[in-house]
């Protein structure tokens, strides 16, 4: 790369020119920012303005560009210079839109703008132009694990988009659970009657598709590599092993019904009690005729027990709702009513949950004469030739009972998600300590592995709640905590076939994007397209392993000398490793301890007599920073004493930034990150949690510096906190003013 | 020729000497000003009201209304039926809807009508007087003839049930209909923020279970006072009667001092159009509306 030449551009559009003293900003960029070239423009994002920058890059040799205009989240297409290092000074959303246009406010508003110009200049000088990851793989074949409705849909969708697919199914036939359904919950208008399960058609499409290679009776013996260059070993029935190169993985391994033998009080295990899968088998055998029990007796009365072993608060059974079972029971009740309207069909429920268009389906069942009673079943026992169902009627508030030829238990979905990695690593540790039982347990757990990943973090995708392979249910469905691996269908969360089809389509699209990005050396979501990647200055590394352990995505292995070994394509660029490193040897070309540190140092700190405190805000770029931008768009005002620096994640915040800031005279530091813990909203799963854990250590440092604990504040922010955030900032700033100036000023 | 013509269905309570006779006189005066011609359906009969459900059964109720449809169609062809009473409107409209949606009911109805020498071809539209005012004329037209705006007078607009549910006035919400407030505004008066505007007055239970109905009426009057209203205004004869005539008994029972006049919207409009107290039917108010009587005399 050519020698560094810096340029700053001061925009005067969007009232920046009238609200701010642009000449003074130019002076600051020149003298303090020490930019080689400084220009102002009336409308920088216009074709003319962009051409000005482009011309400087092409003809003046400018390599580093500081754009002092609007937020880095705005005008990204206009200010897109991929071959250059670019920083953004947020004068619009960050300054003039959050400050009143009054004479009284003019001075502090200008000071704010000047600091953001200083920061943009300092940041860009500390950046390098990302050169992209050279260690890429260009395989564009998708591996789909599981041949049920989700897996087949993912395979077909990827094929339709022009990608080759390897489909691995552990049984001898495609179709999965859906193939075992007599009919499925309706998927189209008017949502009134069960419809064909659709599997035959899907299988025919797969078989006719030259892009899709199917392995039946096959499992994954080993999966190694990284996005764009996975190598999978497929064990087939004959005992031989096939090898395939794939670029991304969709795991659609489905579910098994919760074992009804664990529900003896509801009749699990009795002759005339079946689960929903059992009823499907009976209905399939009847094929539209009278449904008969295993003993051949025609069923004249049937009771469906909802939430059997689900939504359990005792901790004994499934705690969650499986989502599909109400609609499934409605459908199964219709099997009976459609074959003979005189069959007594009763559904006992506590809450009837019918997602999608299930409400219409529910109504249709009521129209057909299915009786829905709100009640809790306490006992199912054999009674003569059938069953006696005891329940509490919750509407009539009485204990009552009813007889039925057959009882159907709506048990829930148990995901086929492989071993729980935390439990596995605990067992492994115990086994390494010589515990024989643990050794047996490890073998047993590993035998359940689906992917058999060759990752130091374990053989499968980490589980979220209740054993499902999910990672971020709100912002990124289908994402898992392994890059280029996506979960679809009931292995991700409980769902019905309609949702599974949607899930599979989404996961296939995500997987395609991941393969394409991996091939270009770019990051996958949420920093899709980012060319930077972490590197470590190994001569300074103490081999503490924090980075390898804390990476939420299993991107960092250890090499044979126990140094961190980055699998760049697995990396999501969150910077958690950078925040973790106690000796600060990990950095990105465009994001480092330096790029943020330089901004912190660039801010002008007025002396203690000025009564102008400075509060540093480190704001998560995914939620808090957009929330601040939107506060600006809504013209919600906040304090002029704050200076905001976006960070990739709280997990990337290195404690040195906090201590440096406080040492250099900032009066307070505010951290804004996403919710962590069980209901986390962190885009990098563990980032905000780890960041907060580290920050808790900083409080000791504060004590050591003789500073009040309140000088550091940790705030949980969601992207929707647009209205409340300015108030929280103001309250904190007021608190800092009341506390008085930091004793470190001017030192 | 008048600018609008309708087949008028006054209903039992709006007859001479009946409980809503002053409603009728004010409607007549109001329509005269607005150049609306209302021709009474010859030999019309009772709609059956809601409370007859147990004795009447289904078909006899519809047949009663069907007779009025047939008479209107035969004698006043092409004219919409307009009712002033909420219950008449509801009962007739309900029968129209049921008959139009059920071939069986319609066939039975025709067979019964034959006994009275009648027959239905097309059931006319069944509308409430309020619909005529706000849909066929519009608030602006209603404002035009105002000679004496009711400046500074505060009314709680008591919509009640049956002009509001289940059919209601088109475009209004069941929970907070605004048309009555707008009518109050169009005569220059001020509608108050009245939170019981769609609460039931007890309906027919005022006769059969007076204690229960009066408890409801008490809440309504109390809320009207709380809203700062001087008077109540309503579009429904039963609402009017129930909220007006039981105030004395409620006072005895609960120790309240209610004395709030209850008016029809048509009375306010008649007065604003310059009508006399008599034309507005103020003499028919059991709780005299002194303020309006003085206003009319000015």
């Amino acid at each position, binding site marked *: 790369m050519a020698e560094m030449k810096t340029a700053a551009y001061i925009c005067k559009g969007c009232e920046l020119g009238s609200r701010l003293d642009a000449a003074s900003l130019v002076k600051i960029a020149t003298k303090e920012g020490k930019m080689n070239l400084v220009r102002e423009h009336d409308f920088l994002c216009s074709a003319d303005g962009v051409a000005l920058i482009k011309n400087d890059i092409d003809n003046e040799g400018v390599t580093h560009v500081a754009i002092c205009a609007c937020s880095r989240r705005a005008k990204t297409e206009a200010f897109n210079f991929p071959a250059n290092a670019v920083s953004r000074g947020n004068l619009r959303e960050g300054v003039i839109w959050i400050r009143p246009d009054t004479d009284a406010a003019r001075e502090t508003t200008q000071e704010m703008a000047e600091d953001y110009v200083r920061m943009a200049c300092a940041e860009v000088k500390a950046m390098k132009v990302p050169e992209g990851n050279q260690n890429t793989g260009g395989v564009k074949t998708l591996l789909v694990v599981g041949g049920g409705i989700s897996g087949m849909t993912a395979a077909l969708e990827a094929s339709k988009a022009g990608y080759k697919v390897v489909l691995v199914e552990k049984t001898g036939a495609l179709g999965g659970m859906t193939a075992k359904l007599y009919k499925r919950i309706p998927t189209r208008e008017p949502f009134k009657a069960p419809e064909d399960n659709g599997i035959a058609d899907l299988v025919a499409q797969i078989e006719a598709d030259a892009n899709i290679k199917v392995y039946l009776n096959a499992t994954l013996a080993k999966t190694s590599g990284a996005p764009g260059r996975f190598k999978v070993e497929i064990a087939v029935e004959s005992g031989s092993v096939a090898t395939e190169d794939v670029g991304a993985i969709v795991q659609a391994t489905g579910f098994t019904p919760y074992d009804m033998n664990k529900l003896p009080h509801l009749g699990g295990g009795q002759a005339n009690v079946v689960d929903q899968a059992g009823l499907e088998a009976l209905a399939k055998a009847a094929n539209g005729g009278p449904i008969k029990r295993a003993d051949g007796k025609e069923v004249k009365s049937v009771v469906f027990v909802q939430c059997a072993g689900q939504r359990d608060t005792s901790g004994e059974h499934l705690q969650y709702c499986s989502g599909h079972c109400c609609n499934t029971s409605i459908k199964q009740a219709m099997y009976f009513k459609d074959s003979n309207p005189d069959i007594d069909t009763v559904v006992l429920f506590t809450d009837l949950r019918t997602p999608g268009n299930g409400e219409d389906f*529910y*109504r249709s069942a*009521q*129209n057909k*004469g299915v*009786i829905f*009673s*709100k009640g809790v079943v306490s006992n199912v026992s054999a009674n003569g030739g059938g069953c006696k169902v005891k329940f509490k009627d919750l*509407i*009539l508030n009485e204990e*009552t009972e009813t007889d039925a030829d057959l009882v159907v238990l709506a048990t829930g979905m148990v995901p086929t998600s492989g071993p729980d990695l935390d439990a596995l690593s605990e067992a492994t540790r115990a086994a390494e300590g010589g515990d024989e039982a643990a050794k047996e347990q490890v073998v047993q757990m590993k035998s359940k592995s689906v992917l058999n990943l060759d990752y130091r973090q374990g053989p499968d995708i980490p589980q979220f709640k209740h054993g499902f392979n999910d990672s971020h249910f709100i912002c990124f469905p289908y994402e898992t905590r392994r890059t280029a691996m996506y979960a679809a269908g009931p292995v991700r969360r409980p769902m019905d076939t309609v949702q599974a089809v949607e899930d599979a389509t989404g996961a296939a699209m995500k997987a395609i994007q991941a393969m394409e990005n991996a091939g270009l050396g770019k990051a996958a979501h949420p920093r899709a397209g980012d060319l930077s990647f972490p590197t470590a200055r190994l001569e300074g590394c103490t081999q503490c392993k924090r980075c390898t352990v804390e990476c939420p995505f299993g991107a960092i292995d250890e090499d044979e000398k126990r140094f961190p070994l980055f699998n760049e394509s697995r990396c999501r660029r969150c910077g958690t490793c950078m925040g973790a490193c106690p000796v600060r040897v990990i950095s990105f070309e465009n994001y480092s301890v330096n790029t943020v540190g330089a901004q912190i140092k660039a801010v002008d700190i007025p002396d203690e007599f000025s009564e102008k405190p400075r509060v540093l805000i480190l704001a998560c770029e995914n939620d808090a920073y957009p929330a601040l931008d939107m506060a600006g768009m809504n013209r919600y005002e906040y304090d002029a004493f704050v200076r905001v620096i976006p960070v990739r994640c709280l997990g990337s915040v290195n404690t040195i930034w906090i201590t440096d800031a406080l040492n250099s005279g900032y009066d307070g530091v505010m951290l804004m990150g996403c919710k962590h813990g069980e209901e986390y909203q962190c885009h990098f799963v563990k980032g905000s949690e780890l960041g907060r854990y580290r920050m808790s250590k900083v409080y000791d440092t504060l004590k050591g510096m003789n500073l009040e604990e309140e000088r550091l504040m940790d705030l949980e922010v969601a992207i929707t906190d647009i209205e409340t955030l300015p108030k929280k900032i103001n309250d904190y700033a007021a608190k800092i003013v009341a506390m008085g100036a930091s004793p470190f000023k001017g030192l | 020729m008048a600018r609008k013509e309708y087949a008028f269905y006054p209903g*039992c309570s709006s*007859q001479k*000497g*009946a*409980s809503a*006779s*002053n409603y009728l006189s004010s409607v007549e005066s109001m329509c005269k000003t607005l150049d609306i011609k209302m021709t009474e359906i010859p030999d019309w*009969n*009772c709609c*059956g009201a*809601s*409370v*007859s459900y*147990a*004795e009447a059964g*289904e*078909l*006899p109720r*519809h*047949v*009663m209304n069907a*007779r009025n449809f047939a008479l209107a169609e035969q004698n006043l062809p092409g004219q919409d039926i307009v009712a002033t009473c909420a219950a008449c409107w509801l009962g007739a409209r309900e029968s129209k809807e049921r008959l139009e949606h059920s071939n069986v009911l319609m066939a*039975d*109805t025709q*067979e*019964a009508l034959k*006994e*009275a*020498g*009648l027959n239905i071809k097309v059931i006319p539209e069944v509308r409430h007087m309020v619909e005529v005012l706000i849909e066929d004329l519009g608030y602006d037209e209603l404002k035009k003839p105002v000679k004496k705006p009711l400046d500074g007078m505060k009314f709680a607009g008591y919509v009640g*049930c*049956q002009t509001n*549910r*289940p059919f209601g006035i088109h475009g209004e919400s*069941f929970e907070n209909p605004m048309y009555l407030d707008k009518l109050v505004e169009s005569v220059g008066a001020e509608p108050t923020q009245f939170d019981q505007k769609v*609460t*039931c007055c*007890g*309906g*027919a*239970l005022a*006769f*059969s*279970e007076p204690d229960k109905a009066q*408890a409801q009426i008490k809440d309504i009057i109390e809320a009207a006072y709380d809203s700062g209203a001087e008077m109540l205004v309503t579009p429904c004869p039963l609402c009017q009667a129930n909220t007006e005539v039981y105030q004395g*008994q409620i006072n005895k029972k609960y120790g309240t001092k209610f004395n709030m006049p209850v008016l029809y919207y048509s009375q306010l409009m008649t007065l604003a159009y310059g009508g006399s107290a008599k034309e507005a039917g103020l003499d*028919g*108010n*059991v709780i005299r509306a002194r303020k309006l009587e003085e206003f009319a005399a000015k």
Partner: protein
Amino acid sequence: MSDMNQQMTARYKNNFLKEIEEQAEMGDWVKMCMQCGVCSGSCPTNFHGGWDHPPQELFMMIRAGKRDEVLSSNSMWQCVSCYNCYVRCPRKVPITHVMHGLAEYAYRLGKAPKGQPTQHLSKTFWDNATKYGRVNEVKLTQSLYFKDGIGSGIKKALEMQSMALGLVKAKRLNPMEAVGGGHKCKDLKGIHAMLAKARELEAKRKGRQPA
């Protein structure tokens, strides 16, 4: 037990839901209730207490086959026809009409609570309205007051005296109607024949023995 009750019990055996679907006006809507309880929360009479069962509970009882309890319930007789439940029901069950239908059916079967005042009002009102084609308010009031006998009637009339006097003074109650005056339809013969036919057709359609 009335003849009709015996007849219906025999016809529907234990299927009370079916009985209500076929016999009560709008009864085929009962099965559509989803037990949300919005009707109960919307009913103005709910707040007085005194009803046996809220609407959605009645519907559940019908499904559970509690025939005697439903038909003898006082609940449906509390209905003030305000249509609040009707417009709020998320399932669009015409609850007001279902209530009326249940009441009517219970009344026909002779199962409705004896001496229920609204039941008496319903009969009195309809008889009054159909006798002359239009309501005679004075006679209606009189027959309501004297339903429990002369003594009680006089007491009630006295209680209501000031109210009635107010109406008379305001020319909204005409005492002359009590003695032969009052409004009448002209074609009374036609009306009575028409109603007789309607009753006959309704009984036929519902498979009830003609009254």
